[in-house]
């Protein structure tokens, strides 16, 4: 009897309990959600390094039954989702005081966490779709939570585009069921590797792969499917922006791409589908890096700049994963693929940490000064020292300044790309890293340093519930950077199992089906 389904059962139960108890006890949302996020974070951190577990629901053994799997990749994302969720809930305790209908906010937040946990531990394609929908619908409602005109429009755009993506994913699930006769991911992987991994391509499987890539890329906001992100992330309340940019696009988008393409379809060296998928991933990532970087330079709205920056950095993550996939698909050295995938996963964890830190500090700045327009801010350093220091650390880290964590992950990705022989792609990535530095220096100059802006004169430091998560995340950014150099064994312990899951895609079948 193992505790893996509790990752979904606890937030789901709390999400149902909060509206009921919230009728009589107004503070129920805050208390219950904080307690449950603490419990989930402790459970997630305790499962780092533990061997992989499979839980068969209802006693029915896979492939007839539904399996719930927590292997290395799942544990990595569970830690990211639950720890950042806990910090965002602590931030929301003070930030959301100006909004009404708070029990509904906490219920929707717990539903979003339940959906993301469910996506990450699901062992079944249709289960993945259902939890993806739960998390997406909760996030649509949360983006439009404060019902102003801007937020409603952004929420509506996000809702329509997200529904199109879900329709495509369901179409692909149906096609995979029609071709292989099963929905269990390990069973489908075994059927595909036995029957269709040779040189002839099954057109239905190629259609399903294309639809999956399109649907999950829209959830991950890769260019050309990114149109909802620059509107949705600025309009949401700051803790929701931090969750969306920090964990939702990673667990619903990047994790789903990894699981479906590395484990289910597999990058067998003799099948032409693998090369097409890997090339598409690299193409989308390069487009994302370029568009995200260039569009962010001209922004004067703080959160919109951070949103475009998210698009660019997710491009880096998928570049590392795509290059690793292409090396596996063309059958070259596995060590180089391991390096590329390790770099991609390290950048994923880093980006979750520093992007959520940046969005939370933008929320703190908005609470203290009342604006997000960078022309009206300036000189935060004198009035709000804690917020300014943490924002500074996060900006240096994401721009790739050594010795912070962002530098090491980008270095690993670019080294892997160069050694794989894609010199043009590497040149673009290095150029865009400089552009990232440009717009983060712009952010620092206009917000942190410089003379005190009009809105900043009456600003005071925000309350403790809001700056404690900022300090914790800043420690994580700096800590990962220092640990990456002095103690690489810790990085190996945390990211190694995840990298092994993606590198040896076929091990997943043995884990689930025994």
């Amino acid at each position, binding site marked *: *009897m193992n505790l893996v389904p509790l990752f979904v059962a606890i937030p789901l139960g709390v999400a*149902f309990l909060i509206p*009921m108890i919230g*009728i009589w006890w107004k503070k129920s949302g805050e208390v219950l959600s904080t307690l449950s996020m603490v419990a989930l974070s402790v459970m997630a951190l305790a499962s780092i390094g533990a061997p992989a577990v499979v*839980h068969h*629901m209802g006693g029915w053994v896979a492939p007839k039954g539904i399996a719930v799997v927590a292997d290395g990749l799942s544990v990595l994302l569970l830690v990211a989702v639950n720890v950042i969720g806990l910090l965002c809930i602590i931030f929301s305790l003070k930030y959301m005081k100006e909004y009404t209908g708070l029990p509904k906010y906490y219920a929707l937040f717990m539903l979003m966490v339940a959906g993301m946990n469910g996506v990450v531990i699901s062992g079944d394609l249709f289960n993945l779709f259902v939890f993806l929908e739960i998390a997406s619908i909760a996030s649509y409602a949360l983006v439009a939570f404060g019902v102003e005109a801007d937020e409603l429009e952004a929420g509506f755009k996000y809702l329509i585009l997200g529904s199109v993506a879900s329709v495509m994913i369901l179409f692909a699930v149906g096609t995979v069921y029609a071709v292989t006769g099963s929905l269990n991911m390990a069973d489908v992987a075994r059927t595909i590797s036995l029957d269709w991994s040779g040189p002839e391509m099954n057109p239905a499987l190629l259609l399903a792969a294309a639809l999956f890539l399109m649907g999950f890329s829209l959830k991950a906001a890769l260019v050309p499917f990114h149109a909802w992100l620059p509107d949705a992330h600025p309009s949401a309340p700051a803790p929701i922006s931090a969750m969306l940019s920090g964990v939702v696009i990673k667990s619903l988008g990047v994790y789903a791409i990894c699981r479906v393409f590395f484990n289910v379809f597999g990058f067998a060296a003799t099948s032409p589908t693998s090369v097409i998928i890997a090339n598409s991933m690299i193409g989308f990532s390069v487009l994302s890096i370029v568009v995200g970087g260039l569009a962010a330079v001209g922004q004067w709205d703080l959160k919109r700049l951070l949103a475009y920056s998210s698009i660019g950095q997710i491009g880096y993550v998928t570049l590392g994963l795509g290059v690793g996939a292409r090396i596996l698909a063309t059958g070259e050295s596995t060590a180089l693929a391991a390096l590329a995938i390790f770099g991609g996963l390290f950048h994923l964890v880093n980006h979750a940490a520093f992007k959520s830190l940046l969005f939370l500090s933008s929320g703190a700045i908005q609470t203290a000064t009342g604006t997000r327009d960078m022309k009206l801010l300036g000189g935060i350093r004198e009035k709000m020292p804690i917020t300014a220091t943490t924002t500074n650390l996060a900006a240096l880290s994401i721009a790739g300044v050594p010795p912070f964590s962002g530098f090491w992950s980008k270095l690993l990705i670019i080294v892997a790309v160069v050694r794989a022989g894609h010199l043009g792609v590497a040149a673009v990535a290095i150029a865009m890293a400089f552009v990232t530095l440009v717009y983060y220096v712009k952010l620092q100059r206009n917000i942190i340093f410089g003379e005190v802006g009009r809105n900043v004169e009456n600003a005071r430091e925000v309350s403790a519930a809001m700056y404690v998560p900022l300090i914790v995340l800043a420690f994580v950014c700096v800590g990962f950077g220092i640990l990456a150099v002095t103690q690489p064994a810790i990085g190996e312990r945390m990211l190694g199992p995840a990298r092994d899951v993606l590198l040896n895609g076929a091990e997943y079948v043995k884990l689930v089906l025994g």
Partner: protein
Amino acid sequence: MKGLTLIVKTITDFVVAFIVVFGAYIVLYGHLTPGGGFAGGVIIACAFILLMLGHGKEVAFSRLGERLAHVLDSAGALAFLIIGWIGFWGGYFFLNVFGRGEQFRLISSGMILPINIAIAFKVGTSLFIVFAALAIFRRRSFRSMIEDELS
């Protein structure tokens, strides 16, 4: 909302009880005939929505108050989760601990029957709440539209 004409009110009074009974039949026999929790829940919600359309919102809320609807909503969902938890003590989530019974009888097939009833509560009250929420918005925006026309 005011409600519709006298003909609609009279027919609604006759028909609502039958709709609720029919919805309950679909829910309870969900493991034997097509239907189940979701379809039966929608039918029961339709009965209350018909009441709201025919007589107006106040009469519908006097039959099923807003607070009671929210409490039943969450209670249905929590009942589903608790049924899953009961199986957990046997080793796996949603393990069937209720006993299978004979085929084709009403009380049979383990935990499908309690789950159908829980889902009917959840879905029925959720649809009723959604419709009530949409009805509030319609009244306000219609009035402002008419006021803009007249001014």
